């Protein structure tokens, strides 16, 4: 009875392996082949283990034909030397092929996107856009089926870029550019997370990756490149409070670069670097309580802003689609 309950509990835990941030729900080429290798290794080693244990039991059992055959020197040569050599050699060659394989060698010029880790958010720059680089933040959009090359850098300390559904993690090291090549096979939204401790709000430094069909991606990038609509309600309050000292909203005098770019912030999935769902309510929550929601984040608190001013700024952010 007890054992049954334990088994059920373990089964329930397995549910945690699926989901938006899981290497078991792989949709990127690298993650898919790594997952395949994982399955081959796991199932293969279980089979070998069972074989060895079976042989051991037979060897300890009553004398008989089976035991006789196990004691045969040819069995030792075949099962003890040839079998492991062949299996390990095949695995080695397969994993070498895996390491080399992947979209990196896939001919066509990749789409370059620069991702910079910064305490505690991500600056995302679409470098290959016809009208010049387009900056965004805390969300990565990529076309399905195309080779994407991410240039990973850090502005301050070591961060690590990990989207388990697509590929293994790659460190972002100050003064270095590391590259990660991705090719995503199916559209969908997955989650990424900083996986190198980088200070106070490290655990709350996440992002979403949205894989979309190429034509949708192209249309989206064109919209993303466009400046924000001018003179929206609340723009004046946003600028007068000094938000532009750190945030850029293209098309307005707000040109700061210390914080995330906000031109189309309302069209992103999350705010606060993967922390809150983008909803009108959450813009207000973030303005009022961002230090509680994401302790240690570097945006100062504007204690003296009136409720009306906060409301106006939230309304403005909400309209930045």
């Amino acid at each position, binding site marked *: 009875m007890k054992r049954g309950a334990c088994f059920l509990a373990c089964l329930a835990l397995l549910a945690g392996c699926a989901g938006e941030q899981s290497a078991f729900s792989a949709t990127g080429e690298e993650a898919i082949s790594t997952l395949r290798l994982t399955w081959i290794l796991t199932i293969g080693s279980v089979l070998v283990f069972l074989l060895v244990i079976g042989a051991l039991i037979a060897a300890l059992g009553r004398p008989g034909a089976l035991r006789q055959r196990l004691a045969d020197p040819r069995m030792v040569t075949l099962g003890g030397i040839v079998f492991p050599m062949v299996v390990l050699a095949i695995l080695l060659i397969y994993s070498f092929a895996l390491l080399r394989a992947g979209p990196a060698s896939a001919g066509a010029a990749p789409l370059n996107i620069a991702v910079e880790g910064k305490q505690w958010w991500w600056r995302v720059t679409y470098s290959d856009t016809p009208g010049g680089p387009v900056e965004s933040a805390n969300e990565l959009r990529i076309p399905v089926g195309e080779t994407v090359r991410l240039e990973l850098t850090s502005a301050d300390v070591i961060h690590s870029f990990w989207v388990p559904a697509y590929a293994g993690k790659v460190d972002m090291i100050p003064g270095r550019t590391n590259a990660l090549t991705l090719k995503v096979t199916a559209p969908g939204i997955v989650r990424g997370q900083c996986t190198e401790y980088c200070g106070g709000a490290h655990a709350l430094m996440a992002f979403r990756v949205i894989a979309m069909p190429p034509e949708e991606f192209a249309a989206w990038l064109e919209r993303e490149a466009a400046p924000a609509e001018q003179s929206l309600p609340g723009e004046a309050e946003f600028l007068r409070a000094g938000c532009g000292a*750190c945030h850029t909203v293209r098309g307005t*005098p707000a040109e700061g*670069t210390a914080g995330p770019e906000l031109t189309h912030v309302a069209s992103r999935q999350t705010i606060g670097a993967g922390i809150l769902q983008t909803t009108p309510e959450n813009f207000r929550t973030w303005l009022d309580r961002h230090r509680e929601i994401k302790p240690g984040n570097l945006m*100062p608190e*504007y204690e003296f802003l009136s409720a009306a001013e906060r409301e106006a700024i939230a309304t403005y952010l909400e309209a930045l689609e």
Partner: protein
Amino acid sequence: MRIRVTLTWLRIVIGLLACLVAAVAGALLIAWTGLYSLAASHGHPGWMTSFLEFGKRRSIIANTRDLNVPDLDDPNLIRLGAAHFDAGCAVCHGAPGRPVTPVFEAMLPVPPPLSERAQDWSPEELHWVVRHGLQFTGMPGWSGEDRDDEVWAMVAFLRALSDLTPAAYGQLAAGNAPQETADVDALVTAGPASLPMAACAKCHGSESAPPTSDLVPILSGQSPAALEIALNDYRSGARESGFMEPVAGQLSEDRIGAIAAYLSSRESLAYAGTEATDPDAIARGRELARRGDGDRLAACDSCHGGSARADYPRLNGQSAVYIRAQLQLWKEGGRAVTPHGRLMAEITDDLSEGQITDIAAYYASQPVFQYGAAVSPAGGEE
């Protein structure tokens, strides 16, 4: 008859304790009977005077630490010190051409005439005394806590004091404010001005005169909201300054509002002597003010430029020395006490010494800001 007492350690300890108890009881008895007169008019007996004098001297010497002494011949320090001395210190210590008033001459100890006595001490010792005051003498400590920087103005002035003629002193002390009016009628009917400290123009400059010192900001032309916040913060003691707290403490809230509105509508001459600035520093400062440093630093002009909220102070035309001193104060944590101050403290955390110099140089090179005058939307003129 002889009493034989054998000395043991226990007996010695008990004996000493008994002496101690007797001494405390004796002191309490003297205090209770009131035998010792504390009358200031009596003066101390000679031995007491010598003892107290000795203790004071030793205490000052023992507590003084090595400090970074600024250039004490800097007229900016001396003028600021003179203005404060006249309003705050001269009443007890007298001034050139003005002896100690009879009221304070009757204090015990009598406040020393500083024209003569300030020379007895080194700059560090004077700094310690002005900063901390002296117990049992009536000498108060500096009212701006943690504003050791301000105290140097007093030290510089005290060092210059012995050479001052009454006329020269009068000129220094009055700053830009008119020297004492000879309006006998007003004097007879209204008495002397009731707010001797609060003549803003004395230090801060006006339409006809620049600020007396590059350590003080130009107030004319700031927005009323920014001026009100500053004065109210000084008044409540949230913002520390030995110069400004006593001034703001004399003002009612209504008066602060009226002063802010008045100053905001006025203009001021720019600083008289400007330090030679490096054009490269100004250019670097302009870039920082407009765009930040591309890393963590916010762009100063987004808040301190023309079109930002009225409660953010404008920096154009303020002296580089003043801006640097305030930014240093923020870096040391001295201003993270009000909502606005806490916000700024997060920004100054990321400032390097070099950036402070560049930003100060840039703003000092700009024409003095005028609230309500037309400004470009991004703030800051070319």
